[in-house]
Structure formats: structure tokens, C-alpha cells
């Protein structure tokens, strides 16, 4: 039934995606909410908060302020914390109530910027959209705001769209090592391994690699504004790192199905074909639950977050590929790299999964 979910947990929403992209950068990140949206993020969408000292807050929006359009508490709050805590920037993240009441977050951010004397970003998230939209918008705003012209440095690459929602530390480290072996110097992974300085110097990269779709809007902007070409790829094999191309793209009616972030899924599909001659179909993350079930049931080999398991048919070979934007930390003891290593191994994927 349209919109009804009984098995799959909803994906991280756009507001969580935006906050995840902003979290490591030392800014003051403010959810314009009544604290419930922040709780969602703190509990299930941000593994880095504990111990980080990151300034991620709620505006403690009240019903009366939402109804009357009273923006002053938010503006004053940002100005006060800017004076007291000296963050490098601030960001206001929209939530469902500001969205349905059509609050002008850009106007609020501009007013806060004048009062606080620091850059204030406005992320007009709504809670209705998936994480990649918020994360993509956040990274785009960051590069629009902070990237500065710079001379290109040969053989350097920046990775765009890296957040813990899509990539584990081990996957990112593995990709970076493959790129280094292929002769590239990895300047930064925005924003998982980045700071404001790294964002300022992004245009110095010879090439941008979009490692999740959250990096695409920023890559397009950097190409248009600074002439930096980009490729959409998360290298998972020496061949992929050397050629920066994928031999195979999405195969409808493939033998296998992959439910993962689409750029990771495309790299995995390429690997499956390269190593084992298996054609794989990519299941969109935002497929309705019923539709996802229909697609999964057609395949005997499934690579997906364990939350998809109940939707698969009996006898399916299921390779667990935990995806934090789907299942948060629930399967943190399973490293997605183990599936990738199984695909890379000559023994083959059939030894890596579990029969349902």
C-alpha cells in the first residue's frame, strides 16, 4: 500500500543528512524544532556525537512561535552562542513544522548573520525527504560559501559526499588506499575527513570523485565554477581506482540485486560482474516497501542492509551490507567491507552470505 511501511525503518530524513554533513566542521548546527527531530538525530543518525563536543542544538521551537512567526528567539539564540562559543559558522536546519508553515529560513539566516557576525547557512529541510537531499544541499552550500579559487594541483583528488550515513571508516580508508596506489593524492573526503580549511581549498583538486550521491550537487557546482571535472565512483578495486570507470551499470533483470547507496551499489555491481560474471540490479533506496519486496523476491542473491531480510524469499542468499542511513548502529558489529572482500575474493560471493 502506498506510503505504508511495516518492515523497513524509514531512511534518515533530509534534516539528519544535512546535520551529518555539517557535524565535523566546528559550526553551530541548529535544528529549528521542538527537540524531537534533534533526538532522532542524536540517538540514531550521528555516531560521532559522543565525545566530540560538536555544537548540535535545538531551537526549542514552540507552537506559539511557529503560529505567530516569531523568529526572534532563534536569531537571538544564534547571536548569543556565536558571541559566547565562537563557532566558525552556524547553520539552521529546517524541520516539518517550519516547512508546513512556510518559514523563511533564508531570511532568518540572513538576519542571524547580520546579528551574529558569522556565516549562517539555511538548510530548508522538511523531514519529508530522504537524507541525500539534505546532505547534498548542505555540502553544496558549504562549497558555495567557503571554496576559494586555487591553482590546480596535479594528481590530486577530493572525495565528495562522504558521511557515516553511507560510508564506514573502513570502506573510505580502503578506497583512499586504492586511489593512493593508483597514483592519486587524496586531498580530503568531504566532509567525513574535512574541516573548513579543506573546503576552502577544494578547487585545488585536479579531480573530484563523487563517492555518494550526496556529493553530486557540490561536484556540479565545482565543475561549473572552478572547472574541476568529476566522476561518480567509489573505487573498490585496483581496476576501478586506475580507470575511474565502471564497466557495468545497472542491469535490469540481473541475477542479483543490491540495495545500497547508488554509487556504492554501482561499484559493487561492477565488481560482481568483473569477478564472478554476475549481473546485478540496483534497488532504489526510496522504493516503496511493497515494491522493494517484489523486486527482492525475484532474486536469489541479495546484497542489502539486514533490515531488508524479511522481504526476501526463502532460499535467497543474503549478504548483509549494513547501511547506517537505514539501520543506524543496529548492525555495527558487521563491517560492510567484509562483503566487499568476499566479492573481491576468488572464492566468490556464494560463500559470503547466509541462506534465508
Amino acid at each position, binding site marked *: 500500500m502506498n506510503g*505504508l511501511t511495516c518492515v523497513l525503518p524509514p531512511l534518515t530524513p533530509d534534516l539528519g543528512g544535512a546535520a551529518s554533513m555539517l557535524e565535523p566542521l566546528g559550526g553551530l548546527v541548529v535544528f529549528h524544532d521542538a527537540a524531537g527531530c534533534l533526538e532522532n538525530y542524536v*540517538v540514531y543518525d550521528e555516531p560521532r556525537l559522543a565525545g566530540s563536543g560538536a555544537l548540535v542544538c535545538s531551537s526549542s521551537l514552540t507552537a506559539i512561535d511557529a503560529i505567530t512567526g516569531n523568529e526572534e528567539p532563534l536569531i537571538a539564540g544564534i547571536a548569543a552562542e556565536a558571541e559566547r562559543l565562537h563557532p566558525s559558522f552556524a547553520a539552521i536546519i529546517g524541520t516539518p513544522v517550519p516547512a508546513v508553515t512556510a518559514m523563511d529560513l533564508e531570511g532568518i539566516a540572513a538576519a542571524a548573520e547580520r546579528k551574529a557576525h558569522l556565516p549562517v547557512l539555511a538548510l530548508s529541510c522538511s*523531514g519529508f525527504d530522504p537524507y541525500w537531499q539534505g546532505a547534498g544541499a548542505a555540502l553544496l552550500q558549504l562549497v558555495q560559501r567557503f571554496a576559494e579559487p586555487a591553482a590546480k594541483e596535479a594528481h590530486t583528488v577530493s572525495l565528495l559526499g562522504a558521511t557515516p550515513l553511507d560510508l564506514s571508516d573502513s570502506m573510505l580508508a580502503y578506497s583512499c588506499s586504492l586511489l593512493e596506489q593508483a597514483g592519486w593524492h587524496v586531498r580530503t573526503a568531504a566532509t567525513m575527513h574535512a574541516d573548513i580549511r579543506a573546503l576552502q581549498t577544494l578547487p585545488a583538486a585536479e579531480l573530484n570523485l563523487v563517492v555518494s550521491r550526496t556529493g553530486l550537487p557540490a561536484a556540479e557546482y565545482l565543475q561549473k565554477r572552478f572547472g574541476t571535472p568529476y566522476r561518480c565512483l567509489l573505487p573498490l578495486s585496483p581496476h576501478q581506482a586506475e580507470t575511474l570507470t565502471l564497466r557495468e551499470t545497472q542491469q535490469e533483470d540481473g541475477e542479483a540485486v543490491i540495495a545500497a547507496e547508488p554509487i556504492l551499489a554501482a561499484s559493487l555491481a561492477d565488481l560482481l560482474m568483473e569477478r564472478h560474471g554476475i549481473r546485478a540490479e540496483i534497488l532504489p533506496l526510496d522504493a516503496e516497501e511493497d515494491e522493494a519486496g517484489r523486486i527482492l523476491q525475484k532474486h536469489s542473491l541479495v546484497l542489502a542492509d539486514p533490515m531488508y531480510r524479511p522481504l526476501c524469499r526463502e532460499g535467497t542468499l543474503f549478504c548483509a551490507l549494513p547501511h547506517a542511513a537505514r539501520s543506524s548502529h543496529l548492525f555495527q558489529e558487521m563491517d560492510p567491507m567484509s562483503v566487499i572482500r568476499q566479492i573481491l575474493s576468488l572464492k566468490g560471493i556464494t560463500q559470503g552470505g547466509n541462506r534465508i
Partner: protein
Amino acid sequence: MSCGLSYSIPVGGSWNLAHICALVPESHALFIVPSGCARIIHLSAAEAGMQERFSTLAVSEQDTIMGGIEEKIIPAAEEVLRRFQPRVLFLFTSCIADFIGLDREVYLSRLQQAHPDIAFLDGRMDPINRNGKLPPIVRMQDLICSLMEKAGSDRAVNLIGSFLPTEDSQELVSHLRAQGYEVRHAALCRSLDQLKRMGSSSLNLVLHKSAVPAAIQLQQRLGIPWADLSGCQSIAAAEPAYAEVTRLLGIAPAELEAPREACERALSCLKEAAASRTVAVDDTYCSAPYALAAEMIRRGIRVSAYFADGGTETLPQKDADACMVASMCRIVDTGDPLIARQYGADAFRDEQALCLGDSAAYLLHSRHYASGLRFSGRFGYDGLRQAAQELLDSAEREADAPSSRPGRGCCA
């Protein structure tokens, strides 16, 4: 002092609606919300192994513009009833519902008409109304109690307001049992019929203030009197409250000498064990941890800090325990964004401190702590004894760092 923005410490085991709904046996909850709002519910349910009790009908931006959500809710609810066959269906809406003019009566009345044997409950996940007449938690307490029905006159008392049942060792509970009373709690009910039967009890004991409106409802609807024990984490308040309970039931007063002595022994041991260490208390441990802190201070235990979301403003004025804590401890507002920076700068570090509550342990970098729950069922001498005993135990071992996993103690 915070200037409006609020920080949230990334640890703690507080309950959310997933855990609270699970207190109602044979129930299912359908969340009619933007999908992101339901993420915490589904993941909490998955962590607790109760995925089959929750579903979501995602409200889209288009829905909020075009309207007609009410018409989508009915078939979605029918589908949930078909798949899971619950006897109670919570229908939760979120903060946006009132802003888009959702008409709950449309679907609630039609569903109730079509399924007279099923209870449809109007749930709200709307923290934006936290300061309103019926905050989400108060509404939930009320909804759970609304299921109780009178079918007799049982020699039983209900504990309401807490999420966890009170332990058998609690002095009032053991006294009531000795007097032949069954002590009932929603978490102990294995079927909806058992929960309904709580409506036949003789007395409601309110353990958390959020359940006072529910107690009033039960008094008006079913004629069950109630006694307010929500202040009984204070020892001074407990004894007169117990006397009121026994008077209402017409039974002998509770014998309190033994629990009092057991409590004093535990506190004395704690004082000895903590002679060269400090104790810190936070507001996640129980509903009135300042009362526990005050009792410790009175016995010479060095309570150095009291951490509370809201700081001194959360301490009740003119309360002797609260005044003592305010005068003897450093009061720290854990909702102040400054906390994040202070944590990063190790401003609170005291690795040997004994902590009541996860937030204190997190901020002090201490592995010597006891986790609690704001809505726990502990009170009186036994509550204080258990807190002292847990601190004593924590002094001798290092625990894992506090986690952010919600729903501590939920065993649905």
C-alpha cells in the same frame, strides 16, 4: 545560562513512544507522520525486538498541501488490522497535524464504527505541544489508563505513572502484598484483559506527576481513588504518603523500621566507600534525583555536582531537598550548548567520581556509574537504598561507557 538553544547529551536510556506503547499488550501503533519522524520508533522497536508492533503511513509534502490524509489513514489502518490483528490500535500524528488542520474525528469515528471490538487511540508524537495542556507523555498516561475497565472490586492496587514495575523489595509494595493486595502495573500485564482488569482495583498509586490527570480520569470514570506518591523519592514525603495509602485502604500502617535501617546501612557503606571520592547526580536517574542527592549530603557524602537539563530552574522552589542541593552542589545545566565545549575541554573530568545517571558519567568521563530511568518505579527507603547500593557496586568495577540506546529496562 543558555540563551534559548538547547543541547542534548548524546547518552541515556530514556524511553520513547515505541517503548511506552509496548506497555499495552496486544496493541499496534500506526504513525501517520513524515517518514523521518518515525525512524526513531522503528529503530527503537527493532532494538527491542518488537518490530511487528509498529507501522508508518508516511505523510508527504504533497499530502500537506493537497489534504485528504484522513482518507489515506482508513485503508492503511485496515491493512494494519488485517496483517497484525491487534486489539488496540494507536494512531499517532505528529507536530504538523494541527498546522495542516488534520481532522482526527473523520478516521477515528469511522474506524471505531467499522471495528467496535477494537480500541482506537488518538496518540500524539508532538513535542511542539510540550508546554500545552496535554503534553505527549501526559496524553500517553491517560490513553493507557483509558483502556482500564471496571469488572468487579478486586483487592488490588495499581501503580501508574512509572514505566517499570516497582521491585518486590519496596517497603510499601511488600506491605500491601502482606495485607493481601495484588500490586498491579501495566508492564506486568501479559494480555489486554489483564490491563483492562486494572480498572477493578481499589486504589491507584501515582508514581509520576504526568499520570495525575490519568488518575483523576480513573476516579471520575471508574470511581477509583488515588494517592500521590510522586514525591516519595524524598524520604520526608514518603512516610506521610504511606500513611495516607493505608488509611485509604483501611489497613494497618506499614512497619518501616527494617527498610529504614537497611537504607541507612547502605548509605553508611557508601559514605565509607566514597570517602576519597565525589558523587555526582543527574536528572536522568529518577524523577526527583535531587531528593536522593539531599539524603546523601545529610549523611556526609560529598555530592559535588548536580546535572539537570534546565539547571536550577528544574529544582522545585521551597523544597527542602532541592534547596539543600542548590546550596551544596555545583548545578550544571546539561541543556546549555556550552556543555559541548566544556566537555571537549575536559572541564568536568573526574574519572573516579561515582555517578548516579548516565549524563553525569558521560560529562565526568567516569566508568563508575549507575544508570536509571526518570520513570522508574523506585521510591521511598528502598529506592534510596538501591541507589546507594548501585553506587557502591559501581565503585568497585568499571562499566562500559554510557550508550545512547533508548528504552532502558523495556522488556516488551
